[in-house]
């Protein structure tokens, strides 16, 4: 406190420029750390061919189950495939599925929630009920149900995540819109007779974007976890495509679980670190955009 008092006396705190939200986010050490970890893992996955010379699908039966070495950073699996390469390439699919699912759910949820939340009425009531039904199912049960109906594939998984995830985004957007609807500038736009869509999407939606962005990051994390869980059970992305969950699938075998830890521990740590970094970013965003904490 005394340090602040001195700085204030000297007028050092007067010229703080830039957006308050950005500044607040950068002050959050965990969020910045999360952003860094996130960037490292993301870039390593995207530029995987530049980092490893191995093909993730290349089977080398001569070096099966070899422990980590300079040759194979994370060792090799039962078929002699390089685990490090598989983790990098697997990240591409897992991140794509997680982010794609979250984005799909957000697109559907936000576009419905913005209009229905502003207009209210029967459309809103029906959508609310429908989302309630979707949310009553435990997420993984609904996903598995849909998987068993639609079949296992990458695209199906994206569609399924969108179907199961839009409900919560819808409800959040809707509640944001309900509170923004009471703001007087919305009344003023109504008094000018502007069209509902213009008021809802152009004037109101930008003010709800903060929480929506937070939700997008957090649901990306959730969908990544879900993809890995499904693939671990062997029910997500088809097993021949490397994903983080599919790599871990090997650990269902008790001998591998016990003897060949390098196959599943590193990838588990990578998943945890990536999800953790997203959660830290999401938390930092939440604090930064939360209007109640600005003063």
């Amino acid at each position: 406190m005394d340090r602040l008092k001195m700085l204030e006396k000297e007028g050092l705190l007067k010229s703080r420029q830039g957006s308050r939200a950005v500044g607040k986010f950068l002050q959050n050490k965990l969020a910045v750390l999360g952003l860094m970890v996130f960037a490292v893992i993301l870039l390593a996955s995207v530029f995987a061919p530049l980092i490893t010379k191995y093909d993730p699908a290349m089977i080398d039966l001569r070096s099966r189950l070899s422990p980590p070495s300079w040759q194979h950073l994370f060792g090799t699996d039962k078929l002699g495939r390089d685990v490090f390469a598989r983790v990098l390439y697997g990240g591409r699919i897992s991140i794509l599925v997680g982010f794609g699912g979250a984005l799909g759910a957000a697109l559907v949820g936000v576009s419905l929630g913005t209009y229905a939340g502003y207009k209210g009425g029967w459309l809103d009531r029906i959508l609310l009920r429908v989302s309630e039904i979707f949310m009553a199912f435990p997420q993984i049960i609904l996903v598995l149900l849909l998987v068993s109906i639609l079949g296992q594939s990458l695209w199906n998984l994206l569609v399924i995540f969108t179907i199961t995830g839009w409900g919560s985004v819808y409800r959040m957007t809707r509640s944001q819109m309900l509170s923004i609807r009471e703001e007087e500038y919305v009344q003023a736009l109504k008094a000018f007779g502007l069209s509902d869509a213009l008021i809802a999407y152009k004037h109101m939606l930008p003010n709800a974007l903060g929480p929506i962005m937070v939700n997008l990051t957090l649901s990306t994390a959730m969908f990544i976890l879900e993809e890995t869980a499904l693939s671990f059970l062997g029910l997500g992305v088809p097993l021949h495509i490397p994903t983080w969950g599919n790599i871990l699938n090997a650990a269902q075998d008790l001998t591998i679980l016990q003897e060949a830890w390098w196959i599943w521990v590193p990838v588990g740590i990578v998943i945890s670190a990536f999800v953790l970094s997203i959660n830290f970013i999401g938390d930092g965003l939440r604090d930064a955009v939360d209007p109640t904490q600005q003063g």
Partner: protein
Amino acid sequence: MVYVDTILTVDNLHINFYTNNRCNEAVRGVSFQLKKGRTLCLVGESGCGKSVTASSIMRLLPPLSRIEEGRIIYHSEQGDIHLHELAANGPEIRSIRGAEIAMIFQDPMTALNPVYTVGFQIREAFLYHTKMAKAAMQQKAIELLRSMRIPAPEQRVNEYIHQYSGGMRQRAMIAMAMSCNPKILIADEPTTALDVTVQAQIFDLMNDLQKKHNAAILLITHDMGVVAELAHDVVVMYMGVAVENGPVEEVLTKPAHPYTSALLKSIPVLGQSRSKKLEPIRGSTPDPYNRPQGCQFRPRCDFATEKCLQEPEACSVGENHTVKCWHWEKVLANA
């Protein structure tokens, strides 16, 4: 100069807030004396530091704020107690809170706990200041509600605050504050959330209480009308500074500070305002993080000179009437 009947002295109080990595000098030099059986009004616009001053007396300041300088002395029957030196939530201040000094807040809907009955919350006040049996406490709570003119108190005592109407809520709040017959009642904008006809009821009630218990009332308000009706003494605050301090008749009829004088000219007065054009104060209240140098009112003041770049000291205008302005004589002559 302490009068025999003075019950609270606030002397050169300074309070800083340290939030958002900034330091805000919320209160910068407030002095006044509160006397038995009299009402003192702290009046000023939002952000002038009047509520902070009131909270600091009870040591109820939020975390990240502290009293930097100055003294708050409670002249109790057992001798002077230096409130500013007590630990913030320690046993000494707790034995004074509620028992000797009580407080009522602006919005009773948020100031009373929604999950407990009104009776429970009144009984809580007895719990640590008296040695009553529970049944006696309940009886006393009912009596208090009745004395606050709440109909059917036997039933109301077991109801929750959301079941009360606006005016009744504030009366329940006052009942709670008066439960241990405090010597000082601090009322922080007690009627701002209420309608005028209900406000009249509350003021009536407070007047009666003051007469009955000879309590000193510290009333925080932004409404000059309320000051004129209720106050004996008034302290006018602007940007954390007590700019003028004196008996209400003097301050309102012969304002010596340019801010007080300008404020009085800028508010419509019922029954005559059609004939008189309002004279607004120019500019707007400065950002607390970007304060003007010297006198805080200088950028908006018609009397401002070079000299005002220095912070003015308190000058005596008359008996008990002080003002912080270099040019108060000119202001008086101009009126």
